[in-house]
């Protein structure tokens, strides 16, 4: 019977480590991509693509330096931006432009009926997409200013500005907040 060589053993250990990261990250990754595109199936598609790219990077030694979540979020966010630049029909752009017409073109998302999804959508509607994303990354995923800035391409001060403006916008809409 053939036994695994040292290189294969390292490869298997690396695969196992990645699988652990993947299993732990999948729900949060899907949640984040849903916040970006607000469509359940698209969100899962992007999350899957992000995992594939992350695995490829992991295999070639370009894995995360620390916490893998911001790294996975950054990969997912780039995929969303790529797709919205290519203007795939029926795709929601990250900036929210043309979102209503795109939303009408696509099949109804069953998640849209869930009360939590309604709450997130209302939250999004009372502030800019950047403010919403910063608020989600801070209060839902507990990321630091630096981590959020790295994901969104902002400085730490820019992140704080978006956060404070988003919270201020939310304070003006207590009916959304209190749901």
């Amino acid at each position: 019977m053939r036994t695994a060589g040292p290189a294969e053993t390292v490869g298997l250990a690396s695969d196992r480590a990645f699988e652990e990261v993947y299993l732990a990250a999948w729900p949060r990754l899907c949640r984040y991509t849903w916040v970006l595109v607000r469509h359940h199936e698209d969100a899962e598609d992007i999350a899957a693509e992000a995992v594939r790219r992350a695995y490829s990077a992991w295999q070639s030694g370009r894995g995360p330096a620390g916490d893998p979540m911001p790294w996975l979020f950054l990969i997912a966010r780039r995929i969303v931006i790529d797709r919205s630049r290519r203007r795939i029909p029926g795709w929601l752009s990250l900036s929210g432009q043309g979102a209503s017409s795109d939303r009408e073109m696509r099949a109804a998302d069953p998640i849209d009926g869930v009360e939590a999804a309604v709450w997130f959508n209302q939250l999004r509607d009372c502030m800019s997409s950047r403010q919403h994303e910063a608020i989600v990354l801070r209060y839902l995923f507990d990321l630091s200013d630096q981590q959020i800035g790295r994901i969104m391409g902002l400085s730490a001060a820019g992140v704080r500005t978006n956060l404070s403006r988003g919270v201020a916008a939310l304070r003006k809409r207590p009916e959304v907040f209190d749901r």
Partner: protein
Amino acid sequence: MSADNFELVLRARMKSHAAELDRSLRPAPRLSALLSSGGAAGRTLGWLSVRLVLGLAAAVVLAIALASGAPPLHVPQNAPLASISPSTSAGASPTQSLASPPSRASPTPSPSITFVLEPLAT
């Protein structure tokens, strides 16, 4: 509600709503199945290759069209004028005449027109 309290409540509310959303999510697929599917990447590569092939085809067609229908680019400097442009009317100055017959390769007449200055008949 104070600022700190507001943010605490926001955090708690966001997490409880997210937990509700998670119940609607499908469980994580097996990693091996996810890696082998390659759905979006495959579609992206397919779309890129279609665009590449179309671009190459357009470039080839354009090159052939240019090569077959191109007018003569220059006339030798020392060629006699009569051999280039036989004049049909003496005394007209300047005379406009077609310098070359239409290219045989092209069904359309050659657009090249040469203005020839002939000596005045005195």
